[in-house]
Each structure stands twice: as structure tokens, then as C-alpha cells.
């Protein structure tokens, strides 16, 4: 089982990198772009021995304690078998 974890800056935190990318895309002529937010993506391959519930608890703990800095970042995740 694979956990796919997406980390992004909180909405309340400015993202100058996303803004720069958005400006570049606008300059290239792409229309209808409201905003760009940059983030990080992790693939965690889990031991098959974990139940779904155990896996969820573990992924959430790892994301909270290590993969994100809760002061500035938030995360969401999904599973892929």
C-alpha cells in the first residue's frame, strides 16, 4: 500500500514561489489562472502488514511530526494499493 501525501502552505501564508510561477504563466499567455500554490509531494510505501486504520494513524502522525511544519504548512493524503 502506498500513501500519497500532499503538503502545501496554509492559505493564510504568502507563497512567493507560487506567485512567481503564476506571473510566468500569465506572461506566456495562459488565461483564466486565478492562483498558483506550490507544494511538496511524498510517496510512502507501507508495510502490507498494517491495517487501513493503522496505516492512516501512522501516515497522519508522520505528516504532522515530520513532513510538515504545522506553523506554516498543511497536508492531505490518500492511499493507492
Amino acid at each position: 500500500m502506498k500513501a500519497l501525501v500532499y503538503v502545501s502552505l496554509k492559505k493564510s501564508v504568502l507563497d512567493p514561489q507560487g506567485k512567481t510561477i503564476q506571473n510566468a504563466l500569465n506572461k506566456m499567455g495562459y488565461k483564466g489562472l486565478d492562483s498558483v500554490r506550490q507544494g511538496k509531494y511524498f510517496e510512502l510505501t507501507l508495510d502490507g502488514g498494517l491495517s487501513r486504520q493503522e496505516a492512516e494513524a501512522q501516515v497522519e502522525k508522520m505528516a504532522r511530526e515530520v513532513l510538515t511544519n504545522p506553523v506554516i504548512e498543511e497536508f492531505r493524503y490518500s492511499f493507492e494499493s
Partner: protein
Amino acid sequence: MKFGVLIFPGSNCDHDAYWTIQQIAKQPVTFLWHESHDLENCDAIIVPGGFAYGDYLRTGAIARFSPVMESVKRFADAGGLVLGICNGFQILCESGLLPGALMRNIGLKYVCKPVHVRVENADTPFTSACREHDVLNIPIGHMEGNYFCDDRTLAELRQDHRIVFRYSTLEGEITAEANPNGSLDNIAGICSAGRNVLGMMPHPERASEPQLGGTDGLKIFASIVASFAASRETILSR
């Protein structure tokens, strides 16, 4: 007074800090390796600048879990003096010893230059040799120095006088132009509620000798030494 300078894989200001303490501040100093829990009875810990563990994931994110940081946390909780400089400040924030986080500079560029910081609180063990609103000239060199915290934390920091340094003009004015990295409220350094942990982005060890262009940074080390001596006298006179 014995100082300990931490070394992580990727630290690169460790020798500068060691030199300044030994040669300029004239105090005993030892290096402390990241894999050891032993702080060797040091009276103050320096978390130096650099790129600890390559700054992989986030600046300071991996260093936080090192054995030596577990000991530094206990040491700080017991009132021990801890000074985090640049990457050291980032590590202290990630460790939860100081609130907030240091984000990518607003201009997205590495900034390396001398800056002015105004002393906002001279009543800490790290600034006792300064006067309030003194302006110090100390260099910065960082990519992630953009201090951020939520509104409630900022209000607390202000109320408890825990903002120790703010980027300013030479005359001590706090302006947007004087802010090199987009830091909230021009914050360049903050301390813990107990005043015994300080994190700062500027590098005092790079401004402690006339040959390096200035000695304002030495005031930080002189403050630590004087404060420690004063605290010892208080204990002895009891």
C-alpha cells in the same frame, strides 16, 4: 564559563563561532557532535549556522530529531543558555524551543550583506551589554530568514518583550526597506519566555573583530559571559 558549539553534518559556521568564543571572548569552548547526548557540562550552547543535514525537507527539520538536540531541549527547559544563529535559529523553531517558522525570503533570493538591527530588549542574557534601541551592524547570509508566526503568537511576543532584534535603518527606524527578507514585523531575533533561548538570523560571530569590519557582534558574546557571571554571583551570595 564553558561554551559548547554543536556540529551537525552540514554546519559551516561552527568554527567561526568556536574561534570567536576562544580567541575574542576568551572563554573555554568545545565542539559537541550531533550524535552524542553529552553536553559535557557546558554553560551555554551555540547552535551554529550552516545547512544541518543538508536542510533536506525543510531548514532545520531533520536536525531537530538528532540526539544532541534532545539534550539541548532538556538543557533549555532547565534554564540553560542557548543561542541559535541563522540555521541554528531555524533549528530552534523547528524544535519548538522558539515559536514561529523561518520561510523562504520574500524575494526568493539568498541574501548576504551587512544589515542593521535595533535592539528591542536589552534585558536578556544575550543583550545585556547593549542598551535598548542600540543599532547593531551585523551581517546576514541566508535563503530562509523570513520570520512568520500567527497573529496570536506575534501579540504574545510583543507583549512579553520577546522580540529582541528588528531590522532597521542605521538611524534605528523600522522601515520596509530595511527588511531584507520579508520578516513579519521586521523580526530578526526572538527569545523564549524564560529569556534563556535566543534565535537570530544575523551572524554575530562574523562581526566580532575589527579585521572583519566591525565588532557589534561581540556584544552578544560579551552579554552572555557577563550575564552568566552575574547569575553565578547571585547564587554564591545567597
